[in-house]
């Protein structure tokens, strides 16, 4: 650990790197919010999951979101390589899946209201977790739409695709959150 091995320190970083770093830190911050959300489930209802929870719907939502992550990744790769057609196609596909996901959550809420309304322990947790997550999905759809409308005329090329990367990263983050929410809400059992 001497001075000799110390690598050159980056000082005065460019705006792109700063933006990336800022986004990462915001994601770290938001992740701790989800950590709080998920931990409250184990406090309020422990491992209790009612039988009325629709496992099919839960699995369907999970698959939808995972596949949308792939399409978002493909959109980013396309933008990085200047492939305009694929970029538009995959952004649209991701957004559609996002909207479908929101529809699925809406259906879930409709069903859940009958079986476990917000005045029950599990209902409280379900509505809060899916509500917060759906808000994130909604913001992700908006961001992707924004990127689409700005980029459909070729605004993003191999050198300046950072906005695409940022929107897609946000989308992946929402996906990661769901990766933890899914077992927390649907799969654990007493």
């Amino acid at each position, binding site marked *: *650990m001497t*001075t000799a091995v110390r690598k050159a*320190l*980056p000082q005065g970083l460019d705006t792109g790197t700063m933006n*990336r*770093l800022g986004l*990462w830190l915001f994601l770290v911050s938001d992740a701790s919010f989800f950590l709080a959300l998920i931990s409250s489930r184990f406090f309020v209802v422990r*491992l209790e999951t009612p039988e009325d929870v629709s496992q099919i719907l839960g*699995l369907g939502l*999970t*698959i939808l979101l*995972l*596949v949308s*992550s*792939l399409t*978002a*990744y*493909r959109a980013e*790769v*396309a933008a*990085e*390589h200047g*492939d305009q057609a694929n970029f538009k196609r995959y952004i649209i596909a991701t957004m559609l899946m996002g909207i479908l996901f929101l529809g699925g959550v809406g259906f879930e809420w409709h069903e859940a209201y009958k079986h476990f309304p917000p005045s029950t322990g599990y209902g409280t947790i379900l509505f809060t977790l899916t509500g917060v997550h759906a808000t994130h999905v909604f913001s992700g759809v908006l961001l992707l739409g924004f990127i689409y409308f700005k980029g459909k005329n070729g605004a993003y090329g*191999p050198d300046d695709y950072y906005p695409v990367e940022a929107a*897609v*990263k946000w989308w*992946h*983050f929402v*996906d*990661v959150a769901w*990766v*933890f929410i*899914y*077992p927390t809400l*649907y*799969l*654990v*059992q*007493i």
Partner: protein
Amino acid sequence: MAAETKSKALMRGNYVIVVLAVLTAIEFAIAVAMTGNLSATLLGIVALIKAALIIDYFMHFKQLWTFVAEVWYEMLDADPDDAPDDTRNAA
């Protein structure tokens, strides 16, 4: 990243999604087969692996990691005395 060819990047995405699908199937199987704390722990581990895959391959985690590593190293060994002496002014 720019050095990576497009087909290679896309292929990697496909691999990742296949592994994610398999892990989701395992998750579901665990939930069907087991209950209680054991099930919850295993589900947590699988979810961690899935998240790690997405974070690492889709979100390019090493962007952040560079800085985390640097800060970690520097906070343990930040010393004004160690800073290399500059000789430009003295010359």
